[in-house]
């Protein structure tokens, strides 16, 4: 009788563990930080939230102003499309396709500028110039954070 009880407890524990594991696995969700900025020579300076982006861009380009227009965080499942509206009336859409050891393969459609597939690791910003905007450039930063 005692043995039977122990067996039942063990089976119940195993089932519980399996249930917890499957709940933890769930669908893969990928957080993406989207930063939309205006890069220009308007003399307004560098917006503090854009400092990290500025550190990357100033090595390549000459400008004096980098202003954050919007900041958004999307959490997408694989094959789910996320959309961020841009101030130039266009939009950027992104869709994570595959997640592997080398990062996440993601399709990005910057409306009116480019369509691209990128494979990026977490915390590796992909900076995209989305076209001209107000005497400067509209610059996006997409950074996966998983």
């Amino acid at each position, binding site marked *: 009788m005692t043995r039977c009880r122990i067996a039942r407890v063990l089976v119940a524990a195993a089932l519980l563990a399996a249930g917890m594991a499957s709940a933890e696995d769930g669908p893969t969700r990928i957080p993406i930080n989207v930063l939309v900025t205006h890069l220009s020579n308007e003399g307004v300076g560098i917006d503090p939230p854009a400092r990290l982006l500025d550190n990357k861009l100033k090595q390549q380009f*000459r400008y004096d102003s980098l202003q954050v227009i919007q900041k958004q965080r999307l959490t997408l499942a694989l094959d789910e499309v996320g959309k961020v509206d841009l101030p130039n009336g266009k939009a950027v859409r992104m869709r994570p396709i*595959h997640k*592997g050891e080398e990062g996440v*393969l993601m399709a990005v459609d910057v409306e009116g500028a*480019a369509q*691209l597939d*990128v494979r*990026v690791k977490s915390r590796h*910003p*992909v900076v995209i110039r989305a076209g001209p905007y107000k005497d400067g450039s509209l610059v996006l930063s997409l950074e996966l954070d998983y």
Partner: protein
Amino acid sequence: MMSGTTDRTHGIGEEMLHAYHDGELRGLARWRFERELRRNPALRHELDQLSVLGDMLRDLDARESAPDLWDAIARQLPAADARRGAGRAGALPRGAGLLWWLKPLGAVAATAAIAVVVLYGGFFQDPQDDAGGVVRWIDTGERGVMVLDDDPDTTIIWILDGITEGAWIGGRRDEV
């Protein structure tokens, strides 16, 4: 020519004649054949004819293989390689149309071109293949593009406003 050989050669068949001619006859069989050869002029005649026929065939074969085609083939090789290369370029599945605009660009864009070309190596791989750069495929339509990945922690994809814009303005270390 060989018909009736058996009759004329006292039991030595055509097969044995060929075997002797080809040097395949050994031991007692060879001794018996040579003994018969000494005695039988018809057999010697058959053997002589076989030798003549063999010489003719070898001569014909040599004449056919005589032309050395290597020079002609060698002359064709670079062109074939070029055509093969062109074929490959023409067969690029995606994004290949972007490269033509890179030709007229200056030094700045040439650097970008190299970056793009290097990255293009990854574009034709299986999307799930882990080898390659960050940018696996890109289509900017009629616009030029610079992919800057000097910094291992960031990839900058600078889409230009036109085909050649960015060669002289808007390029690296230039006005935005």
